[in-house]
């Protein structure tokens, strides 16, 4: 099974006793370098296309970070991204490659949006919001049950099943939106709109909804779970070696199911927060497709919350500021995809170079040395 197989490359966080403190500053800078290289590569590309990279990046920064409204938008975007990342962290921790995040996200979004307006009719909104968040969590979690059961009981590889469930989920979301949840006010297929004033409240003095707070709290909890609880250790053993987990008396089946559900739940919560914080509705065929990129980012951040946050923040800035930059440079927005792709490549590359360099200092280049190269890489993702 892939999760077992890729143990070699699956990052193992804090494989030592938790209390051993981590100077994350160092780790962070080690990991920030590739981003810079990626940007440089993107810059070269821009030059080739006769655009001005400095201007491009400056505009990105300006409209994604340096202006108040841009910063607000970035932070608002951060909420769902961080929650989704938290979901991936939990799954990867347990060696579960939940690659169907987008399906869980969209289905949860559709259900939350679909129930939103009706719910407001029957109960006070201060009750509706938390309730819908729970709904999102449950739907997202529920969408992992089939894959997790099949993995737990038949050893069915979860990459296939989550992929398939993602396809089903995305279509199902559309069916719901065009069926039971179809709004009769607008003619575009979409859900009824939750009145703007009833969406998640703003953090006082800003237009940033409280989703970001929820996200940060969730991340802290996940981090605590990872490093300070028996459950976290069980998941880590499961992720490192399912057979060892079984041998140690860990009820592997239960933990696979719970970890998977928790992962999907957080992703569903991400959807709820995005819908209840920004949109108030979901239209058919809407798919922000955060999943894939976050999957990679979380992995490259070594499942380390303290590294995930800055990475995701950076990603959000590019997402938010990039449009304006692309517009001013007269480029299609899809250039941003290319940019992100390049950055990922460079993250991978420098991670490799680092491990090699680390080794080179110890003992030149030769067959055997590759061994610990991979070991080291495995060590810190």
């Amino acid at each position, binding site marked *: 099974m892939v999760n077992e197989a890729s*143990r070699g490359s699956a990052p*193992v966080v804090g*494989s*030592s*006793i*938790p*209390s*051993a403190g981590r100077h994350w500053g160092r780790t962070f800078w080690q990991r920030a370098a590739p981003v810079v290289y990626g940007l440089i590569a993107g810059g070269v590309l821009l030059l080739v296309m006769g655009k001005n990279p400095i201007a491009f990046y400056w505009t990105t920064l300006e409209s994604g970070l340096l202006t108040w409204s841009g910063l607000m938008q970035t932070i608002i975007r951060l909420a769902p991204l961080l929650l989704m990342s938290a979901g991936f962290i939990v799954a990867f921790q347990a060696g579960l490659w939940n690659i169907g995040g987008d399906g869980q996200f969209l289905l949860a979004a559709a259900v939350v949006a679909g129930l939103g307006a009706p719910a407001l009719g029957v109960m006070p909104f201060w009750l509706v919001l938390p309730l819908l968040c729970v709904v999102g969590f449950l739907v997202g979690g529920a969408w992992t049950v089939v894959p997790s059961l099949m993995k737990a009981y038949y050893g069915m590889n979860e990459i296939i099943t989550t992929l398939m469930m993602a396809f089903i989920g995305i279509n199902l979301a559309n069916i719901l939106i065009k069926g039971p949840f179809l709004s009769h006010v607008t003619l575009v297929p979409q859900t009824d709109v939750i009145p703007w004033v009833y969406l998640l409240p703003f953090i006082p003095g800003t237009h940033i909804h409280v989703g970001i707070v929820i996200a940060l709290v969730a991340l802290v909890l996940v981090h605590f779970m990872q*490093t*300070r*609880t*028996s*459950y*976290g*250790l*069980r998941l*880590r*053993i499961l992720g*490192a*070696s399912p*057979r*060892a987990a*079984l*041998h*140690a*008396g*860990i*009820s592997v089946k239960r933990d696979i199911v719970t970890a998977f559900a928790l992962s999907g739940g957080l992703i569903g919560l991400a959807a709820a927060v995005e819908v209840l914080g920004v949109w108030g509705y979901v239209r058919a065929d809407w798919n922000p497709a955060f999943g894939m990129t976050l999957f990679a980012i979380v992995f490259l951040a070594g499942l380390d919350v303290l590294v995930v946050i800055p990475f995701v923040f950076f990603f959000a800035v590019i997402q938010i500021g990039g449009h304006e930059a692309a517009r001013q440079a007269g480029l299609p927005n899809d250039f941003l995809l290319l940019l992100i792709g390049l950055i990922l490549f460079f993250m991978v590359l420098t991670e490799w170079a680092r491990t090699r360099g680390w*080794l080179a200092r*110890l*003992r*030149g280049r*030769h*067959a*055997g040395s590759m*061994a*610990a190269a991979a070991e080291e890489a*495995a*060590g810190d993702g």
Partner: protein
Amino acid sequence: MGSAFSSGSGSPDAVVLELRGITKVFPGVRANDHVDLLVRRGEVHCLLGENGAGKSTLMNVLAGIYMPDEGSIRIDGREVSISCPRDAIDLGVGMVHQHSSLIPDFTVLENLMLGRGEGWRLSTGRAQDGLKRLTTTLGVAVDPGAETGQLSLGQQQQVEIIKALWQGSRILILDEPTSMLTPKGIEDLERVLRQLKQQGLAVIFITHKLREAFAIGDRVSVLRQGRLQGTIDRETMKAASATEMQRLVVELMFPGEAETLAHVAELSDLSELGGGGRAATAGEPLLELHEVVVAGQRGEIGIVEAISLTIHAGEVLGVAGVDGNGQRPLAEAIVGQRPLAGGDVRLAGTSLRRLGIGARQRRGLRYVTDDRLGEGIVGSMSVALNLVSKRIGTAPFWVHGRTRPEVIAAHAEELVREYSVATPSIHTPAGSLSGGNIQKVIVARELSLDPKVVVFNKPTYGLDVKTTAAVRARIRGLVDGGAAGALLISTDLEELLALSDRVAVLSRGRLMGIVRNGPGAEQEIGALMIGGEHGE
């Protein structure tokens, strides 16, 4: 093919292989430190040394797995550079690795054809012939169509050797080939080796069992901490008596410890080793198996049929049998790693049927697995965490699910000291320890926190004399208190005779009989085994 056996230019004892100043460094370890080694054609050259001495590394350098940092290799007097396994094979160096390198779901034939085929099409025909010729020369029987995963370890071992000889090796390296074999398997192997010697091959033979070394070897070299301690040549070996030889070797392996180790080495008279002589006054029954039936899993041999056993306090019940005759399923069923298809297991009177692995653990039922790296430890995790990995979530290490690092650390420090585990620190990833020390960690974990019954599955295979002694002492020490009992599964008859009070013989998943240890036990057991082999 034929070339295999008509190889080697020059006089009968011409030097085939010459290693000069081989040095290989791993992070933090000098695995080999300027090692020189001479190997002659037609000799079996034994390589001895404690765990982590660097034997496998040296051989892997020869087989092209590692590039040496320093040193030179000469074959037939020509200086050669071996940068990958292909080079080694082309130079006629064949190696049977310490850890099996067969593909379980490939047939024997497919395994043999790997990387051997000329041209595009797979030519099963030619492979068939080659296999037939080899099996006849070696006097072994292998079913070419069988999935290797389905073969017993002994047969797998033979396939590995055939694979190593496949392209006509001049130098054959066997890295601990006997660690998993039964006396019978070892005899077969010895016969095969003699065959090969006759045909002029040079064999490098790594083992931890001195007796084998002396029986099979023409010369013995000893490695210690990566350095060559010395080589004992033919003449000395002929001249010296077994006991003298042992002193010599042990002195080389563990300078200054020969005395302390003398009494444990296998060579001394069995009766001295505790086992046999002990008065058989066993305490009350601790673990009872009633008609236990276990089903084999997909692609696995050895199921267990209706076995009933009782382990009393203060006794070691040995389980003898050719590997792959149901030992592992039995052990796993007892500790709860696989379901009982029938029957019942009772610990101190209470049935375990409903209890999970963890629950049985806490009730004092422990399992020292034979799959150390596969399931025994989590290589990427610290020694400390591995020492509590079967206690997750329970006090005092966890309180309300919250980890208490300081308690875990203290516990680890204590065990590491008590079991003298050689590790840089308790935070070191367990996977980076040497084989012997990994086993110490496992034993420490299982024997800590008041065990009642411990199931030992091949507890000493692949361990050096010293660690073996330590582990065996632990096993006896456990039961001699009279409070606990042990089930000792082993393919090593000497070990069984040395440690057990009674020995049950397992064959094809059935219980052939139970022999009380003592004079003549060896013959009885042997008889029961043969019976099992030839039964129906």
